[in-house]
């Protein structure tokens, strides 16, 4: 009696877990959301830094943090289960974002307001949905 109850509880938990396992589309969306979050955080940091609203120490530390998080996400991307095409596109996007954040970090570190202003203004508005739509259309 007890073992049967235990077995059915285990079965229930396992099925819930199986359903909760993310689909490939969700995993792709998740990676993209992380990328966008940090790309836009970096832009935000740049914009506030120019306005003098945040101290240098905080700006540089947060940009370093953005860099770390993007790197960690790239590593996670390599291990995730998804179509190779999606992995390649996401990987590229992540690398591009990381490069931009790096440039921004160097500019802030050098107190180069002009460059920071340019980067904040000119880097593409990250849009989480577009990448997902592109992959889904294939």
């Amino acid at each position, binding site marked *: 009696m007890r073992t049967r109850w235990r077995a059915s509880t285990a079965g229930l938990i396992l099925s819930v*877990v199986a359903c909760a396992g993310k689909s490939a589309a969700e995993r792709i969306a998740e990676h993209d959301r992380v990328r966008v*979050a940090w790309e836009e955080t970096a832009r935000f940091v740049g914009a506030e830094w120019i*306005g003098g609203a945040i101290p240098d120490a905080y700006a540089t530390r947060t940009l370093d943090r953005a860099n770390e998080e993007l790197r960690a996400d790239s590593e996670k991307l390599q291990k995730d289960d998804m179509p190779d095409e999606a992995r390649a596109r996401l990987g590229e996007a992540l690398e591009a974002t990381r490069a931009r954040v790096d440039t921004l970090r160097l500019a802030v570190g050098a107190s180069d307001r002009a460059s920071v202003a340019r980067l904040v203004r000119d880097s593409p508005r990250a849009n989480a949905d577009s990448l997902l739509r592109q992959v889904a259309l294939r």
Partner: protein
Amino acid sequence: MKKLLEITLGIVTSIGGFLEVGSLATSAQAGAAFGFQLIWAIVLGTVCLIFLVEMSGRLAAVSKQTLAGAMRDRFGYPFFLVPLVAMSLLALLVMASELGGVCLSLQLVTGISFPWWAPVGAFAAWLLLWKGTFSVVEKGASLFGLVTIVFVIAAFRLHPDWTRAAHAALPSMPRHEAMRYWFFAVSILGASIAPYLLYFYSAGAVEDKWNETDVPVNRITATLGMSFGGVLAVAVLIVAALVFVPRGIRIERFDQIALMLTPIMGRWGFYLFAAALGIACFGAMLEIALSVAYLVAQGFGWKWSEDARPRDAARFSLVYTATLVGGALIVMMGVDPLAITLMSMALTGAFLPIAIVPFLILMNDSRFVGQHTNGWISNTVVCAIVGLAFVLAVVSIPLEVMGS
């Protein structure tokens, strides 16, 4: 006139326990991820807390016993160990989160990332408890805690769509990332309904020698005080929604939350955020350390009194000291503060029944509260909300843990 003063002081006191790292982090993350949608979770949590705090004061006023003491009295010894151990361990985790908040605040202000901020913060809290009295702790933390009003000011300055916010006070289903939504919902409930606040409040009421005539005032104090806390949390959510959502920023790490007030108030916003975070968390640290000490000392019948000198309440003082040390050790292990915060809030939600069910039984037992037993509304509301928190926690925590 005296009653008016009591009410005002009571409200100011209640502030100290409400907005702390848990409410701040959960509200900010929820606002950034889901806009106004999760306002209902804050509303539900606040309503439940109002009922619970009022009950805690009523119990102390009528039975002249604290919640912990009454629990041992009514349920006896082996049973009492269950809430004692569960709540103490949970409090330790929450303490670590609060200390993390204080450390972040110091880091923001000084620009120095100092691993030793943790023992510094813990030591400062300990010193205040060691040398201070209950009133000093209570009133000091609350008065300084008023700096958190900055979030309400910021919310107004952003001109939110108040109608939309009001609609969000009613529960709604998530349109995306359902598991995350429910995990945030339970974290918000756990952040609002903090059991440690109940042990703290009833101990304060007994130490202030409340009696039956204080029951009506207590009702007002609990309602106004906790509502104020709820308003603060909603303000944080609104500000986060209006600042982060248009920029497409999802909060992943604590560092990002510090940007919340800068678009609205510039450099002042940055430092005000740091101050609000630091002060609120510091106040919470004091309350949590005392709550654990109250729980243990009252449960075992030791002398407990924040007003007494440490040597006159030796084991009590030892317990709050150990709690602070434990919290510092956890922080120094280097676990991500935002992760500890979210998890401890969600676990609080999961463990609420352990703390609340015995409490409800006490509040319906005339041997303790005489004629002032709970009405059906109190019982129903609390049961429903705690039940909800528990179900959400059991479902969403394992999934969130596996998903990340």
